[in-house]
């Protein structure tokens, strides 16, 4: 089964969601992330969804779930690089991901994370 690679960059974790993500892959990612957060003691997880062009309610909920789960493990999820069409779909579905931090791209996300760590 395909798995989403989770990369560790310094104190952060980065998961890049592939364009055609299957539900099973999404569930596996959720499990993997939990393990990796605990193992690496990362405080911030970047979920890069810039490749995702189409989103359904399942993936939308998954992002919310990952964020909730990470919060329980004392880490924060930042959703990175959401495409306009995806953002509009999620708003239409009523999934505004309240409480989840967002960033335009990985660069902006790392800059934001850096500012946060130094204050």
């Amino acid at each position, binding site marked *: 089964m395909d798995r989403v690679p989770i990369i560790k960059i310094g104190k952060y974790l980065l998961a890049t969601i592939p364009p055609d993500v299957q539900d099973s892959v999404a569930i596996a990612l959720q499990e993997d992330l939990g393990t990796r957060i605990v193992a690496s003691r990362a405080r911030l997880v970047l979920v890069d969804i810039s490749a995702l062009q189409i989103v359904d309610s399942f993936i939308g909920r998954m992002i919310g779930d990952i964020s909730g789960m990470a919060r329980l493990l004392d880490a924060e999820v930042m959703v990175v690089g959401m*495409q306009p069409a995806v953002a509009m779909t999620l708003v239409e579905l009523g999934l505004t991901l309240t409480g989840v931090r967002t*960033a335009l791209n990985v660069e*902006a996300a790392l800059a934001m994370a850096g500012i946060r760590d130094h204050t």
Partner: protein
Amino acid sequence: MTSRPYVTPIPILGAQREAILERWIAEQKREGIARPDLLSDADLARECSEFMSALFAGLNSDSMDPTGSRWEQMRASLRGITLSRGRLGFGPSETMRFVLTLKEPLFSSLDELEPTQHVQAVLEINRLIDRLGLMTSEIYQQGREEIIQRQQQEMLELSTPVVKLWDGILALPLIGTLDSERTQVVMETLLQAIVETGSTIAIIDITGVPTVDTKVAQHLIQTVSAARLMGADCLISGIRPQIAQTIIHLGITLPDVVTKATLADAFITALSRIGQHVVAKRTDHER
């Protein structure tokens, strides 16, 4: 309606074609719908004779049904005349009466017929001209609707400019009422601009929005949420005192949205968010 036998003697009408045309034009002038200010006499005569040829082309077929295939020329001619009159500024009733005034010249050319045949023929022609008149008004309406639709489209395109105020700061001055369709366009343009410019802050200025009701507020919140999902913060500016009052009376809350009274205030806030600030230029004696 299918083709049916009819009694109207086409040859009699055909023989008087020139006379009918002349009487028709005279009738239009007498009724005051010729409008010499919009259409010259020569053009009027040309239109009328075009209409007459199309009419006779239809009458010479074996059908009195103007929606039938034999009346193709009539319909095309009617369409051309109606649309051109609409553009020239003729009113809907003037355009319709242009067709209806043809009745009397046609009736009077049937005077030689025997009474029973005469009644029958008049009824037939009456029905035919009425239907042509209705078609005219329908075409006229369609022409108007096309114009309205085109203008709506143009307004949509015109009314959603996204302005770059600074590196990383976009402004979206909204003008006019926000309905669902416009919100969609506004949202798309804004989100696309956020991606293209890599901006982290967008200012939505609603100075030009006349009223804010629950629906408009809902649309604003949606736009703000979508931008936030992409990683850009939205500020709303240009809320006039009356609108603020309306919003409170309606019980609308704009949760997690920073609002400012003017675009200038919002711009200063946006600048400080990206770590910039405006200072006055020092004059020479201060140095």
